[in-house]
């Protein structure tokens, strides 16, 4: 019988362990969310991140080691974005009927997302490098990291800010829209997809398929809009 510690030393350096643990953490987190009737405060993404973060800190595992295993999951963000074409095609009549409201909401929302976060953070005296990293926080991780890098921000920090924004929007959207008695699920989905990219889209799909479809469209459109808006607006910084 081998010493359990030496098994751990071996496994903790392999991609297998961290990939398997990430998937298990997600399945448990998702089961908890389901058991709570998909309550907006019980966000599976947040639970899984907190669990894995705690495991890394408790075992003293570097993030780079963890990511060697978790990158296989991370990689699927690209094909998942392409897959949004399917609900888009399915609901295309509804999408075409809402083209003008979407264009107006995209412009207003993209500018609000960038200006408001930079303005509030700047008022607190946050340094420029972090402001640049904050600016693209409403768009999906891959796009936001590219924008941040091009303009002198820190891509790894941007990724964390993107996820934080995603979870915030996913947690807030349902209680906020219900309190305001907004029942247009196309509008609700579009708002959460624009604000909170894929995590908002995941939440929207859990609530309503129409909302999910519009969230997916908003996520894609805002990726484009924000890559145009951020460089323009940062000139005044």
């Amino acid at each position: 019988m081998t010493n359990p510690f030496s098994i751990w030393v071996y496994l903790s350096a392999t991609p297998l362990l961290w990939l398997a643990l990430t998937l298990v953490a997600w399945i448990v987190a998702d089961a908890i969310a389901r058991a709570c009737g998909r309550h907006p405060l019980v966000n599976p993404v947040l639970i899984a991140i907190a669990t894995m973060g705690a495991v890394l800190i408790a075992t003293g595992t570097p993030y780079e080691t963890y990511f060697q295993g978790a990158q296989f999951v991370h990689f699927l963000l690209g094909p998942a974005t392409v897959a949004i074409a399917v609900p888009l095609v399915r609901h295309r009549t509804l999408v075409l009927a809402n083209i003008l409201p979407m264009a107006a909401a995209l412009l207003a929302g993209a500018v609000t997302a960038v200006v408001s976060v930079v303005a509030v953070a700047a008022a607190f005296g946050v340094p420029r490098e972090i402001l640049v990293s904050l600016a693209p926080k409403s768009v999906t991780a891959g796009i936001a990291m590219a924008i941040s890098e091009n303009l002198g921000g820190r891509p790894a920090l941007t990724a964390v800010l993107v996820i934080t924004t995603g979870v915030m929007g996913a947690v807030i959207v349902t209680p906020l829209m219900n309190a305001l008695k907004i029942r247009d699920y196309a509008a609700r989905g579009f708002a959460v997809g624009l604000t909170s990219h894929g995590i908002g889209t995941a939440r929207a799909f859990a609530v309503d398929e129409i909302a999910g479809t519009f969230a997916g469209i908003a996520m894609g459109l805002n990726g484009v809009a924000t890559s145009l808006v951020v460089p323009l607006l940062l000139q005044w910084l």
Partner: protein
Amino acid sequence: MIRTLTLLLVCQLAGEICSRALGLPVPGPVIGLALLAAGAMIHARITGADTSEIEKTDLGVTASALLGSLGLLFVPAGVGIVQQLPLIGGYALAIFVALLVSTVLTLLVTVYVFIFVKRALAPGASRDGGA
């Protein structure tokens, strides 16, 4: 499953090539999304398939599997907070407040502009619109 996953990856690859070659600000996966949507629409026109049934095709099943667990895909990047937290140090609270204010404001501006323009374009329909 493998065929449809390949189709998604090839669309992403084509999107990535378009994005780089033409120097577009549009990210590769978003162009891939547009290519796949256009392809599915053309395919439906040629074969006479009903696009409202697309969920039942192999592509539809793969897409539902990916989109049904979309949240999982953000976990690896999110765990990066263990590495970034010490670097933002004293600014953590300011950043949290800025993100929270901006998230609420962006949700409100987006949803109200959407609804306002929709109503303005459809006079007489003063309801919230059931979607």
